[in-house]
């Protein structure tokens, strides 16, 4: 029987995988993909909690829909930045971009 804990474990696994990828990847594109993994781990948690804790209200489902829209916008933006970086500097490695250095 698949219960809430299974969903949560899957979410956590997705989150950890995403986090690892985001922290260790050199490619900016891969970082964006891993961030998507984290987002979807969160979505999964929200949907699981919603259906197990308060199935009648379906509040979590609304949040998931919103988050998907936000994630799409974010991906659009991130891809635009990555392509722009790639074009102007001909780079893809994220650790070479250090404009934010203090």
């Amino acid at each position: 029987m698949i219960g809430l804990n299974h969903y949560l474990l899957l979410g956590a696994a997705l989150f950890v995988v995403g986090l690892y990828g985001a922290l260790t990847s050199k490619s900016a594109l891969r970082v964006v993909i891993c961030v998507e993994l984290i987002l979807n781990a969160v979505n999964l948690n929200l949907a699981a909690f919603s259906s197990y804790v308060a199935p009648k209200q379906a509040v979590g489902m609304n949040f998931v829909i919103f988050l998907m829209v936000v994630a799409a916008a974010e991906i659009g933006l991130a891809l635009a930045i990555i392509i722009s970086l790639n074009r102007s500097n001909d780079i893809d490695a994220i650790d070479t971009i250090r404009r934010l250095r203090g």
Partner: protein
Amino acid sequence: MTGLLAYAWLLPLAPLVVFAIVLATGRKLPKNVVAGMGIGVMFAIFVASMGMLWAVAQGARFEGSVPWIEMKGVVIEVGILVDPLSVLMLIVVSFVSLLVQIYSLGYMADEERFRWYYGAISLFTAAMLGVVLSDGWLLMYMCWEIMGLASFLLIGFWFETEVASKAATKAFMVTRFGDVGFGLALAIMWFSAGTFTFEAVFKLVESGAWAGPTLVVATLLLFMGAMGKSAQFPLHVWLPDAMAGPTPGSALIHAATMVAAGVYLVARSFPLFEANPQTLTVVATIGAITAVMAALIATSVDDIKKVLAYSTISQLGLMMLALGVGSWVAAIFHLMTHAFFKALLFLAAGSVIHGTHTQDVREMGGLWRKMPWTTAVWVIGALSLAGIPPLAGFWSKDEILLTAFHKEQWGFLAVGLVVAMLTAFYMGRSTFLAFFAKPGATSKTDHAHESSWVMLGPLVALATITVVIGLVNSPMFGFAFGAYLGEHASGMNLSLAAVAVGAALAGIAYAYAMYQRGKANPDWYMRNRGIAPVLTKQFWIDDVYQRVIVAPTLVIAGVFRGMDVAVVDGVVRGFGKVGMVVSALLAKFDRGVVDGAVDGLGNGVIDGGRETRKIETGNVQTYLLLLVASIVVLLWVFAR
């Protein structure tokens, strides 16, 4: 005329006003106006004094005093006393001062500080008039000190020269030494008699209410004051040096009047001295020593002014001798005649100095051709000093000898005769050398010229006085002088007079033989007498003072200076050092702790900033890692 006496207190004030005007106006007034004020005031005083003489001779007296200090029932009064003695002194002082001031018109004409000279002379005259008019010792003492100041100012008139400034200091210090005695005498008098006025103290002494040791000591101390002012041995050393002042000033102060103040003091206090025969003996002995010693020194001095200075000391000694053997009238008589003829001699010497620009008799000679008037008056003065009749000096000296004769003081009589002979000798010596002997190789008389009449006038006046003044106490005028002063004349002893004149003539003859007749090398005397070095060194008295008083004083002063440097300066420096150490510590504390805190804060912020910015690598993944790590930490801390 009697009413005039009550206004005698104005006499000392008038010259004082002149002095004040000179002080206040400086160089604003023309020279002639200043001199005119001085001379005019002095002339008025002289006329007034003559008027007082007329009144006093008829028996008028005046004594008036005003309370000066009142405290707790004690009243100290000051006032004036006009009696024959004070009027006589008034006349002598004002007359000599008048002539000296007229003479100075010529002598001091080119001086830069001409006005100051007249101011100082006026100050002096005011003080001297105060001394002779005061009715008690206190006021007298005050005027006495002002006189000392005026003397200091005039000796140091040419203070640019070291000689003059040193002489002025010496004169002031030495006379001050005597004045300390005077001051102590006043203190004793106040505690013993309780008053300072002559009359009151005399009454106490006469009635025997004040007697014994305190009286003896008081008289001795009074005499000490007189010794200082009248240049008596051993306090005579200042007077020869005082010749560094302008000659007319010397004539007035250091020959005629101020130095006679000591004699006047003793004469005025005579009832006190009379009550103490032992003090009188001291007075006579000191006088005798002074007279002989100074006369001996005068025979070896070449400076024409210093001859007169030592002669003055000698004659003052003779006056003291007269006082000591008990005749204040003889002393005052000699004081008066001496004032006139010594002023005459000094002014004549001034005329010589003015004409030849030298003071050394060896550089003179044959002046009688070039300065006939000066020579004439000088000879009159010299003969008078030598005691040749009928000049003034003869009568007064004779009076002194006669007193000693009558009192059977044979030793003092002999001293008087010896001094008479020595006096004649040294006056003969300087007279022949300066005026009659052939000019020597070093002579500077080529350009000598007779002085102007403004200088010769007073000389002639004084010469005339010198010729006639002695007669006032001669048999021809019935010893009017003694009668005027209220003492019966002691008559005249022809044989004693003859001996005295003989001694004087012998002295002159010896001087003539030695200095006029060919052998006239003045150094002859110096080389050929065993006593010569003693005389040229003035009996080593100055050297003794130098060794015994001045040198030890300097040593003591040096010791105290050393103590000052070592101890006092040391303490002060020590305090300074401690202060510096403490402040250095405080500075360290300030810099280290206070500044350190402030700086440390700033530096800490800077360093912290520098260190923390290192984590801002610019790498997005680092940020993310830190973010996750922070969340993990927060969860671990709060969600446990």
